[in-house]
């Protein structure tokens, strides 16, 4: 029981990170209908920015924890959004309106580019940083097992919840959110109503990148190591999460992320760590067999 509780905590933490990345996939998919394969690598770029920023702060002897984390978050969000914007502008915007596969290939190319760019400029080695936050709260002690929630886990879950609330508010209540949803439904009509569709799409990419940046900082704090390859795995998992929840649906992305996180940690804990990816994908296939548009996705109504 105690063991299961610990897995639940770990799974939720992992799921929160996946969910944050998944939202980037789902938003981009919703608005221009493409899989942004480079999104995982955007997340990886932000993790590297976080490593540099943490190291810089340490060099300047800034030890106040809230200050350091806020500063790193701001820096990472700023630069990563710039990356998100640039990727969209260079690789996807020229391809808008062409076949569905063209942006996909362009995105795969972008992903290869980003991975190798980081490998070249930042080095191929794993980057470890000293633990930023140590310790945690012991929740429950049984004779043979201690359930503990680390401060980093609390931080990740808190930040995710806060972001989710802010994000839901942004999408449902603000004028930007209205524009964004309008573009999702019918971008031509939206353009006719005088809304700058290009700008909205750019902002969507930046927003997705910003959430990935937060995820990147959180992962850096949580695991303490980054390398140029983390984007690939995290990207695939997050994309799976987005599809599982129903691509295009924001609550779906979060739900999918949590589910994938939980499945992974429970599978690894009770069955076998090697086959956790198989389990993730097998469950995805099973879910899609019965609900072809994901858990919370609206089925596509096709008119002839």
């Amino acid at each position, binding site marked *: 029981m105690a063991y299961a509780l610990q897995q639940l905590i770990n799974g939720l933490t992992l799921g929160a990170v996946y969910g944050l990345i998944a939202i980037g996939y789902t938003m981009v998919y919703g608005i221009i209908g493409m899989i942004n394969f480079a999104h995982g690598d955007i997340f990886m770029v932000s993790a590297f920015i976080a490593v540099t920023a943490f*190291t810089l702060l340490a060099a300047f002897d800034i030890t106040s924890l809230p200050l350091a984390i806020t500063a790193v978050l701001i820096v990472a969000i700023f630069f990563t959004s*710039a990356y998100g914007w640039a990727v969209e502008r260079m690789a996807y915007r020229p391809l808008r309106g062409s076949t569905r596969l063209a942006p*996909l290939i*362009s995105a795969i190319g972008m992903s*290869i*580019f980003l991975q190798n760019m980081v490998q070249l400029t930042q080095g191929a080695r794993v980057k470890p940083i000293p633990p930023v936050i140590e310790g945690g709260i012991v929740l429950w002690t049984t004779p043979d097992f201690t359930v503990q929630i680390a401060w980093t886990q609390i931080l990740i879950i808190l930040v995710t919840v806060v972001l989710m609330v802010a994000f839901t508010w942004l999408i449902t209540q603000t004028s930007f959110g209205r524009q964004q949803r309008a573009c999702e439904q019918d971008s031509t009509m939206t353009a006719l109503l005088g809304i700058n569709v290009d700008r909205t799409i750019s902002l969507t990419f930046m927003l997705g990148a910003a959430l990935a940046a937060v995820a990147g900082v959180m992962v850096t704090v949580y695991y303490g190591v980054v390398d140029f390859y983390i984007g690939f795995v995290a990207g695939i998992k997050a994309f799976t999460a987005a599809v599982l929840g129903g691509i295009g649906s924001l609550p779906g992305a979060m739900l999918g992320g949590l589910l994938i996180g939980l499945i992974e940690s429970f599978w690894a804990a009770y069955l076998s760590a090697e*086959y956790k990816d198989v389990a993730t994908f097998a469950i995805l296939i099973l879910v899609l067999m019965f609900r072809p548009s*994901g858990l919370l996705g609206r089925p596509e109504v096709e008119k002839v």
Partner: protein
Amino acid sequence: MSAVIVARHARTPTERFKDAAWVAFVALLLGIPMVGMTTVDQGGALVVTTRFGVLAAFVAASFAGRFAFRWVMDQYRTRRDAKSTTVKVDRTAKVVQVLGWGILGVALFLPAMYSDNRYVVDTATTVLIYVMLGWGLNVVVGLAGLLDLGYVAFYAVGAYTYALLFTHFGWTFWEALPAAGAMAATFGILLGYPILRLRGDYLAIVTLGFGEIIRVILVNWTELSNGPNGIGSIPRPTLFGLPFERNPAEGEQSFATFFGLEFSGMHRIIFLYYLILVLALLTNLFVSRLRKLPVGRAWEALREDEIACKAMGMNVTNVKLSAFAIGAMLGGFAGVFFAARQGFISPESFTFSESAIILAIVVLGGMGSQMGVVLAALVLVLLPELGRNFAEYRMLLFGTAMVLIMVWKPSGLLSSREPTIRLAKASAMGGQK
């Protein structure tokens, strides 16, 4: 949208300068965290080092590059606008045909020209493997319009089927080839069945997941696949039972002794080259014939409109499954050849990036175009080879090239597709076309 861009007036130098300055600013923003700074391990702790010189060079290069690019593009545009807008006759089909025969000719005589250059023949063999894989995937993606991101799984199934059949039952290449094809086709149906109802991008992630599942199983099921260590000493194919060995077994003949030639390692390389050439050409023939059969037409109809297909009473299930099965089978054949050529296989050869490259070959070539696959395979395999001198930047260039080719030609290098059926001239005149 594009019409608006073309109609834009020619830029003044000031505008060009502003544009380039903006690009330089973005380059600066992007460059600061990645180019300008890096963390280095110093005695166990990371230390930030700055490279502002490199950053400045990077920004300057972006500025100059953008400025020059804009200038060239504007020149090109004004010149193009000045020219009379006579309708160009589309000769692409003819050119492609000539090009195809030309490439085939070169392919046939390549080993003769480079009979002592192992590197060239080896590289050409690699190109041909990708051509074959591209033609196989073309059935699924190009003809049937089903996005498959896990094609490498079938390649792996083919390769492992041969490797396992050999290690456990001693099957030779020629015996294993059909078996592996059948095995891969079975896997194709296995994958195809649960995802019949899915479309578009759901299909993409499921196929991607399937590819990963196969790879993870190959890595972890050590009893079956020997895990990450892979399977080695897979025998090379023989020519009608004649092996390509220096010292054939007692009482048997090798290729060299049978033909009374002096033994040379190149014989095998050249034989492998011709083998994959024949396999690839057979694939091409097979696929282009299939296109003219009802099943091939059904694929293309499915790609264009699934609902219309259903309305016409087509069995969509069978059409999709046949596309998956045949695409997978061709991938399986390529896999057997790959295993036989390398003599050693491990899960590392069957990662997602391999799938991505094969898909890129199909899409860059122009979906559904057989010749396009050849061109794209040439570009994508030779580009990293040419870049071997600056090995570090190889994959960087590869990614850049993928983006640039796509942006330059969004529908692929050869996008003009030959219609499968043509109306006869007279009826075409009568119709609306």
